[in-house]
């Protein structure tokens, strides 16, 4: 009888443990999603909308709305997973775009130094193309 009671208690403890592990509102689960959102933010991926959805899910967890929280967190998790695979590519593209912009901006003074006199002279001559020289009497 005693053995039966101990076994029943063990089974209860094990089921509680597995329920907690699967709890979508557990700190571990929320921390995991937050870490992924931080990674996306670090890679300059626009995840503001996802963070706002995560906020709604966290508030649902706090309010005891488990089913709503589970639905929102599953949705956020799926979108985050799909963005994670794109994160490196997005970051590389943004970095390349920034480097191109900076280099182009720094090249402008060099181009002005080389080409401004040529362009100015070219325009100056064209504006006087039909002029002719008259000898002073």
């Amino acid at each position, binding site marked *: 009888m005693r053995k039966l009671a101990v076994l029943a208690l063990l089974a209860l403890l094990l089921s509680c443990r597995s329920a907690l592990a699967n709890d979508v509102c557990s*700190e*571990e689960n*929320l*921390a995991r999603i*937050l*870490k992924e*959102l*931080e990674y996306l*933010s*670090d890679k*300059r991926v626009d*995840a*503001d909308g996802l*963070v*706002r959805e*995560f*906020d709604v899910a*966290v*508030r649902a*967890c*706090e309010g005891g709305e488990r089913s709503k929280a589970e639905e929102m967190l599953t949705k956020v998790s799926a979108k985050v997973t799909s963005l994670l695979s794109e994160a490196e590519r997005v970051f590389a593209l*943004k*970095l390349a775009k*920034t480097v191109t*912009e*900076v280099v182009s*901006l*720094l090249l*402008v*003074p060099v181009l*002005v*130094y080389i080409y*401004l*006199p040529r362009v*100015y*002279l070219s325009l*100056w001559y064209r504006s006087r193309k039909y002029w002719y020289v008259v000898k002073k009497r």
Partner: protein
Amino acid sequence: MILDEEVFALIVAVTVVASVISAALTLRDFMGYGEPFISLGLLDRDCKIGYYPSRLPIGANHTLCVFIYNGMRKPVLYEVKLKIVTNASAMPTDSTPSPVDEIARWRGALPHAGNATFKVNFTIPEKHSRLAGSKVILVFELWLYDTKSMGWFYSGRWTSLHVTLEG
């Protein structure tokens, strides 16, 4: 001379300054700028400044409003804890939280440069009935979740409201 040398030098100088400033601004936008910070504010029941309650009955429902702005340059998971402090030695500082236990807490998440204004409903527990008639300080502390240490840490931001508890 067709193109004056001094005029040409001035044009090139202006172009150099403009291009360097533009390049610096472009880099600044990409890398992010400014020291990361987060701010916490307390508003009244209508989420406005002013008309804060001065007397709070114990056991009754009360409503205030909390404002949070995230300038941490990353998304944050935050927690606002409400504590009742009865003496100055138990007040939080910019580095240490109050040692008193919380009576309520609210959690949420914010993206960088995002802000939240939300109502907080709370009740002063009956166990504080011994404080009826005395002045206490309602302290709201802001805690953030650190994904490196996988735990909550005190952000150093707090705000307070001095009230008299009524029995």
